[in-house]
């Protein structure tokens, strides 16, 4: 008997389509690379400016604009914390509604629509809209971050609820519990650790976002950073960036500890 051969089945069964896809991808990459035009003299100019920026990092200047840095930081931290609290408070009910396995189909669709709107807009774009609506300053930032938090947290919470063990859900439903009792006794214990982890993670993200959206006028440390860059004060900008990095690292370290504790 002839020896039988075996090789794993290919991802795309049709060989014509398979090799066509390979060839198409290669052609696209080649064309895309060919379409990039690099102006090397400008790159050379930029390198010098880049070097000035990097050397600014080696001599960060905290003292020159200390007052403005402190004010920007206060604004950013306040914005981050309040927006996270408000965002979470709104995300939890929307997340419950957006979980297919526990919600009425109409509620489900409504909540999914809210999430889709929130997620489809990038933070900077939302910030531009809110700055146009309520004017420059941290209040626009607060609204932006709250709104962005809803899309992120509701979606991930809803997905975690949908992954919950159906046996536990069924068991509590069989006791004659009301919907709210059911959520409290069968859903909440299953999703709480992940929810806490997500909230802490979102707090991190929100702080970083608060720095970014300041550039488009939504207040906070981002505005301070933008001003420093506009004045070519790279040493001050470096100081601000170092403070942002330190705060993000501290938050990261603290939240990973807290997450381990709540498992």
């Amino acid at each position, binding site marked *: 008997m002839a020896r039988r051969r075996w090789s794993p089945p290919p991802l795309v069964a049709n060989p014509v389509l398979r090799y066509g896809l390979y060839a198409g991808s290669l052609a696209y990459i080649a064309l895309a690379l060919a379409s990039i035009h690099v102006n090397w003299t400008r790159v050379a100019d930029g390198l010098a400016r880049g070097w000035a920026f990097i050397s600014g990092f080696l001599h960060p200047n905290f003292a020159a604009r200390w007052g403005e840095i402190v004010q920007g930081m206060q604004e950013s931290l306040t914005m981050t914390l309040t927006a996270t609290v408000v965002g979470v408070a709104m995300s939890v009910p929307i997340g419950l509604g957006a979980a297919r396995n526990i919600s009425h189909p109409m509620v489900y669709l409504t909540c999914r629509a809210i999430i889709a709107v929130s997620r489809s807009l990038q933070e900077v774009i939302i910030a531009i809209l809110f700055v146009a609506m309520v004017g420059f300053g941290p209040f626009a930032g607060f609204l932006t971050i709250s709104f962005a938090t809803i899309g992120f947290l509701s979606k991930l919470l809803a997905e975690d609820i949908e992954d919950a063990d159906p046996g*536990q859900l069924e*068991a*509590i439903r*069989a*006791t*004659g*519990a009301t919907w*709210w*009792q059911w959520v409290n*006794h069968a859903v909440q214990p299953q999703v709480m650790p992940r929810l806490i982890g997500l909230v802490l993670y979102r707090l991190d993200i929100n702080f970083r976002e608060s720095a970014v959206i300041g550039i488009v006028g939504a207040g906070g440390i981002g505005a301070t950073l933008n001003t420093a860059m506009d004045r070519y004060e790279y040493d001050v900008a470096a100081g601000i960036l170092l403070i942002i990095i330190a705060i993000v690292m501290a938050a990261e370290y603290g939240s990973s500890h807290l997450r381990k504790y709540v498992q």
Partner: protein
Amino acid sequence: MLRIEELSKRYGRTELALDGVTLEVPAGQVLALIGPSGAGKSTLIRCVNRLVEPTSGRIFLGDSEITALGKRALRLARRRMGMIFQEFALVERLTVMENVLSGRLGYVGFWASFLRRYPDADIDRAFALLDRVGLAQFADKRADQLSGGQRQRVGIARALIQEPEILLIDEPTASLDPKTSRQIMRLLVELASERDLAAVINMHDVPLAQLFAQRVVGLRSGQVVYDGPPALTPEALTTIYGEEDWARSPAHGLAPDEGEASVEKPRTAAAVPTIHRDKARSV
């Protein structure tokens, strides 16, 4: 106590999962529901408390027609039916006590349950039940720290604290070892007779069903094909499960036609295996 009339269930457009099941279970009776996988056993008991909505047919618990109840009335009726599950279905991150007390959710208001301020009478009931199933010292342990047998005991306590009139039990021993299985079955049968409860138990383990049930109902392709005493003949097993050499079992030794093929020495007393008593009696 429980009366099921011409119950049918169809999932989507597939064939019938239940096909005109009619069954009556009096109070105090322990009924084992057996049948091949996919015969409709789980669907049947879930139709009784309408975790699965029946397609047609009627179900009565006492005088109330379960199949005719509205949303709120159904919720209140579910209090009268205790359910016990194969994988125990305890809420893993809640304590043993919280799991047991969750059986009272149908009786207490939202804030009382949210703040875990259950009435004193419920707390007393919960402790009494934990004593009865031998887990009083575990009240504040988290459910995921218990062994399989202990978890199923918590599941039993959760069902009983509802003060139900009937127990719906889905494969109670499928995840347990043989000894624990027997202990759990014994406990269920004792509790059913102590409280004069009807019990419908889905089972795969036929010998265990024969050992503990008072009545066996065989389900095949959604239809009742056997309803009678637990002493199942090989013919009855063929009706329920299909063709197989049912006469051959450890108790009967080899089937007659195989007896001559393999010559076995007559057993002496010394060859009979001794059974070692388990020293640790805890489950």
